[in-house]
């Protein structure tokens, strides 16, 4: 098999001798801080950055006995759906190496799909765990907002993102979620609902009497082969005693626009910290100056470091976010996006009164060929149509392999109510 480039750094971090993950290797996405091990976020800006502390989820992995076997490749700062925007080169999809593994946690999903790691952690801001899980034919979970601590996760869009597990099976993904979920005094947005969880036990495949809602808006416009595989999987669930209902969520048609306004706005603020002074690429190196004095005043020096340290997609999002928040545009873009977010939440609440879980194809398209989406950023943004509504509504969702279309993996996304992790795990396990 071709070298997949699933890892940015291959270094082993041993965990405790005895725990639920003893003997298991876990690939950790490279935006999750590991004490003493380089953490780059897939960016030239952080090449060589070595965190002096562990993320809370990394502490949990070590306590559970896991062996971290490397830092997984990713789209730069999580900004992309293909893992092609990494400064360290694209990751290839182990199912078909001419295709992308999805993103932004593409290294994590590729490592698991290829057997280079038993399990992996990714982060999901708008689909970044579920998309690569779908494209690589593995399982990925985006937990309810607040279930997993974000302490030590390098921030992209705080109000949307969660760290989530990737694994070959639903039960293993749920088991890894059990390890990382829980309240953390160092992340004030965490909740206690995940303390002492046992999501793995819910992977019993029992969907008898479960109602599965399908939002028609998330099927329209999807690739024909993907839709066919999706309906086959729904029929499979019906055969096992589940009931299918159609639901309507008109708000999701505004989700991609609302998501990108909010994510880019938050990113423009979060990424302001990268100025090359405390960490990251320094202006002297970036501008090839003799010393700091030659780099000019702080505005000039920072702009030099950021020009050289950030790739095109990151610059694009910082600039669009800055624009959306600037005087005269704030109400028109950011304010409206928050209205859309509230509308989407309301639509989900109503739909989840009619159904126990909601189902859609995770990705409306099969895995892109390498290079296919890079020329037009909008192609990539629109591929996130089915995953971003979930982040805007703070809900949990899982992507589970539903079958193949033209020999390529198709993922089914199952969305649950807030803290409904057990329900989505149960429904997904019925498809294995």
């Amino acid at each position, binding site marked *: 098999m071709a070298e997949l480039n699933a890892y940015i750094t291959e270094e082993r971090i041993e965990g405790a001798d005895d725990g639920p993950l003893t003997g298991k290797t876990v690939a950790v996405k490279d935006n999750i801080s590991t004490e003493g091990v380089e953490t780059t976020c897939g960016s030239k800006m952080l090449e060589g*950055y*070595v965190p*002096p*502390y562990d993320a809370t989820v990394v502490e949990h992995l070590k306590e559970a006995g896991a062996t971290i076997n490397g830092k997984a490749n990713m789209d730069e700062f999580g900004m992309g759906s293909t893992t092609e925007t990494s400064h360290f080169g694209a990751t290839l999809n182990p199912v078909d190496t001419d295709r992308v593994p999805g993103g932004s946690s593409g290294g994590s999903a590729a490592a698991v799909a290829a057997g280079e790691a038993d399990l992996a952690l990714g982060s999901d801001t708008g689909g970044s765990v579920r998309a690569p899980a779908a494209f690589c034919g593995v399982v990925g979970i985006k937990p309810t907002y607040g279930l997993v601590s974000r302490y030590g996760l390098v921030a992209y869009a705080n109000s949307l993102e969660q760290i989530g597990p990737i694994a070959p099976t639903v039960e293993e993904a749920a088991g890894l979620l059990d390890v990382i979920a829980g309240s953390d005094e160092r992340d*004030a*947005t965490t909740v206690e609902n995940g303390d002492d969880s046992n999501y793995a036990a819910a992977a019993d495949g029992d969907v008898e009497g479960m109602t599965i809602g399908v939002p028609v808006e998330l099927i329209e416009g999807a690739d024909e082969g993907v839709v066919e595989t999706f309906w086959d999987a729904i029929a499979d669930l019906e055969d096992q005693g589940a009931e299918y209902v159609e639901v309507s969520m008109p708000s999701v048609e*505004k989700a*991609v*626009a*609302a998501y*990108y*306004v909010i994510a880019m706005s938050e990113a*423009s603020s979060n990424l*302001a910290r990268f*100025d*090359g*002074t*405390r*960490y*990251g690429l*320094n202006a*002297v*190196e970036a501008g090839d100056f003799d010393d*700091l*004095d030659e*780099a*000019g*005043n*702080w*505005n*000039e*020096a*920072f*702009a030099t470091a*950021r*020009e050289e340290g*950030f790739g*095109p997609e990151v*610059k*694009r999002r*910082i*600039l*669009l976010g*800055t*624009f*959306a928040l*600037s005087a005269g545009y704030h109400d028109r*873009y950011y304010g*409206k*996006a928050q*209205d*859309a977010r*509230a*509308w989407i*939440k*309301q639509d989900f609440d109503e739909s989840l009164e009619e159904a126990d879980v909601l189902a859609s194809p995770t990705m409306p398209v099969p895995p892109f060929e390498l290079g296919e989406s890079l020329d*037009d*950023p*909008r192609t990539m*943004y629109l591929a996130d149509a089915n995953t971003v509504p979930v982040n805007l509504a703070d809900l949990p969702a899982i992507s589970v392999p539903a079958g193949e279309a033209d020999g390529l993996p198709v993922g089914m996304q199952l969305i649950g109510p807030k803290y409904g992790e057990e329900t989505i795990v149960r429904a997904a396990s019925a498809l294995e």
Partner: protein
Amino acid sequence: MSDGNEPAVTGEEVREVADLARVDLSDDEVEQFAEQFEAVLADFETLDEVPEVESEPDLVNVMRADEIEEGLTQEEALSNASETEDGYFKGPRVS
């Protein structure tokens, strides 16, 4: 979503935003971004059709005791800085 009537984005506007964000851009980047931003901003404009909904987010204040805890040592905090002086970060001059 783009209908061809999107607002034109000029290179000058891209440079203004880049200046606010402290990111230098090459001429090529300015030209490319101006073109791409037109299409993306046209997508953003569709949010104008979003209805207002009543929402009551369940927000709570999260408080903790104001107690001194162990943090990073000065050495750890400075360990990733390329320029330091007398135990401090050394930044570029202000003006």
